[in-house]
C-alpha cells in the first residue's frame, strides 16, 4: 500500500482557557492568561513557585460511574476532550467502534492525585492496603488515559500510550499519523492529558525550573524567550484530535482542519535534562523530510518555548538553523502555562485555528527578547496577520525526547 494522506477532522480540548474551541482561540488572540495564584501551595513548605494554570470549574461527574471509578482527574479530562473531538468530527458510533479505529494518547504521569492519596494513606496508617480499592491501580497506571478512553468510547483497534512527558501528545499525534499513513489504522483518536498536582511543580522547583518571581503577578508569567523569564508554570488539561485517512474523510464529507504532513521523533541521549541543539535541529529536519517539503515552505514555527533559561536558548538556536531568522515563531505557554502531557496537542489545536484564521498568536509577555536566544522573527505584541499554510510544531521532554509535527492547510 502506498503512503496515505492523513487529515485532522475533529478537535476537542479542556484547558485553562476554556473547553470550547472558538472562545479558546479568541482568548489566545486577545492575550488572555490562564495563570492564577495558588495560595493553597503555601500550606506546605519548600515550594517556591505559587502560580499555576488549572482548569477551572471542571466537573467529570457526568461520566458514568463504572467508567469514572477507574479515572483520576487526568482521565476525566481526557475523556471529556475526546468526547468533544468525536462529536466535532461527527464520527458515528460504528466508526468509533470499528476495529480499524485506534487510540494514541499520552501523559507525563498517570493519575497523580490517586497516587498521592495512596501514599498519604500509607504514611498515615502504615498499612499498605488501607488506601487501596479495586480501581486504584487503574487510576494510577501510566496508560490510564488511553485505556480509559478505549473503554469509555468502545474503541477496539490498537492503543498506543505515548507517555513521554512533555512530548507525549505530539508523539501521540505522530504515531497516529504513521499508523494511518502506513495503513495500519483508518482513524486514530490522538492526544494527551495532565492533571495539576503539587508534586509536579515540586520536582521542577527542585530543578530550579519553575517561575518564582511573579507569584504576586501570576498573569505576567511564564515569559517564553523573554530576557526576564524565570521558568515554567505548570498547567493542566487535555486535548484530542481525530486523525483519519484523508481520502476516507473526504468521502464521508468530513470537515478537514488540516493535514498532518510530517512527523519525526528522536532522542538526544546526551543528558536526561539538558537540551541538545543538535537533537532539536535533527527532529525538525526529520519532520520536514518526512513531509517532503523545504524549510522555506514553513510559514510559522509553534515552539515548545517553556520559559526555562536553557531550553528557550537551545530551541531558538535550533529553529534558526532549520528555518532561519525570518519565519514567524511563537510559544503559547505564556497564555496557559505548561500543560505537560497535553501541551503538544492543545498547542497543535491552536495552530489549526491560526491556519484557518491566517494569523499568528504572539508569545504573551515577550517584551524584550533574551539576547542569548537566537535572533528569530518572534511574534510579540499583537497577533500577526498573514498566510499560515504550513506549521512546524515542536515538543521536547525530559529524557532528551524530541518530537516535531508538520501541519498543512
Amino acid at each position, binding site marked *: 500500500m502506498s503512503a496515505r494522506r492523513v487529515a485532522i477532522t475533529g478537535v476537542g480540548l479542556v484547558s485553562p482557557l476554556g473547553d470550547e474551541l472558538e472562545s479558546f482561540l479568541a482568548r489566545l488572540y486577545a492575550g488572555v492568561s490562564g495563570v492564577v495564584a495558588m495560595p493553597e501551595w503555601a500550606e506546605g513548605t519548600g515550594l517556591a513557585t505559587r502560580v499555576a494554570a488549572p482548569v477551572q470549574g471542571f466537573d467529570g461527574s457526568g461520566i458514568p*460511574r*463504572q467508567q469514572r*471509578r*477507574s479515572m483520576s482527574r487526568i482521565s476525566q479530562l481526557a475523556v471529556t476532550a475526546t468526547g468533544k473531538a468525536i462529536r466535532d468530527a461527527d464520527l458515528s458510533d460504528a466508526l468509533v467502534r470499528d476495529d480499524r479505529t485506534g487510540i494514541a494518547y499520552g501523559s507525563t504521569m498517570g493519575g497523580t492525585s490517586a497516587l498521592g492519596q495512596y501514599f498519604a494513606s500509607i504514611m498515615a496508617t502504615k498499612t499498605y492496603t488501607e488506601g*487501596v*480499592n*479495586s*480501581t486504584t491501580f487503574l487510576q494510577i497506571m501510566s496508560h490510564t488515559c488511553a485505556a480509559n478512553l478505549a473503554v469509555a468510547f468502545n474503541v477496539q483497534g490498537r492503543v498506543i500510550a505515548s507517555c513521554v512527558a512533555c512530548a507525549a501528545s505530539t508523539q501521540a499525534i505522530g504515531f497516529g499519523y504513521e499508523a494511518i499513513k502506513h495503513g495500519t489504522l483508518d482513524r486514530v483518536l490522538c492526544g494527551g492529558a495532565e492533571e495539576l498536582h503539587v508534586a509536579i511543580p515540586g520536582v521542577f522547583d527542585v530543578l530550579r525550573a519553575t517561575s518564582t518571581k511573579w507569584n504576586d503577578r501570576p498573569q505576567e508569567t511564564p515569559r517564553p524567550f523573554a530576557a526576564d523569564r524565570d521558568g515554567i508554570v505548570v498547567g493542566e488539561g487535555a486535548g484530542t484530535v481525530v486523525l483519519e485517512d484523508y481520502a476516507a474523510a473526504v468521502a464521508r464529507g468530513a470537515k478537514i482542519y488540516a493535514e498532518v504532513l510530517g512527523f519525526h521523533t528522536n532522542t538526544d541521549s546526551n543528558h536526561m535534562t539538558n537540551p541538545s541543539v543538535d537533537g532539536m535541529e535533527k527532529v525538525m529536519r526529520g519532520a520536514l523530510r518526512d513531509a517532503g517539503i523545504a524549510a522555506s515552505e514553513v510559514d510559522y514555527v509553534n515552539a515548545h518555548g517553556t520559559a526555562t533559561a536553557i531550553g528557550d536558548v537551545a530551541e531558538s538556536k535550533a529553529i534558526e538553523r532549520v528555518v532561519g531568522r525570518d519565519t514567524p515563531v511563537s510559544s503559547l505557554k505564556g497564555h496557559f502555562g505548561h500543560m505537560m502531557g497535553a501541551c503538544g496537542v492543545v498547542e497543535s489545536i491552536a495552530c489549526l485555528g491560526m491556519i484557518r484564521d491566517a494569523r499568528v498568536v504572539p508569545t504573551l509577555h515577550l517584551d524584550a527578547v533574551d539576547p542569548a536566544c537566537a535572533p528569530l522573527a518572534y511574534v510579540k505584541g499583537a497577533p500577526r496577520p498573514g498566510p499560515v499554510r504550513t506549521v512546524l510544531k515542536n515538543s521536547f521532554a525530559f529524557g532528551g525526547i524530541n518530537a516535531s509535527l508538520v501541519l498543512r492547510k
Partner: protein
Amino acid sequence: MDANIIDGKVNQIFLKLFEVDEGQLKPEANLYEDLGLDSLDAIDLVISFQREFQIKPENSELQAIRTLDDVYQLVRRYHDKAAPTH
C-alpha cells in the same frame, strides 16, 4: 449494632459508593442485575465491609451473596457473632 443501623449503613454504601438511586434499595434487589454492580464493585463492597464494619467474610459467604438482603443478613450475622455475651 442494631439491625436497622446495619441496614442503614449498608444502604449508605450503595448510595455513595455505587451511586444507586434510593428507590432501588429494595431487599430483593439483585446486586448485579438490578443495581448494576460488577466484579470490581464486588471487591469494593468487600473492602467497605472491612472499613465500615471491621468484618472479613469468607469467600464462600461472599460468593453466596445475590441480593441486598443477603448483604444485610451477612453483616448482621457477623455482628451477632461479635456481640458480647453477658
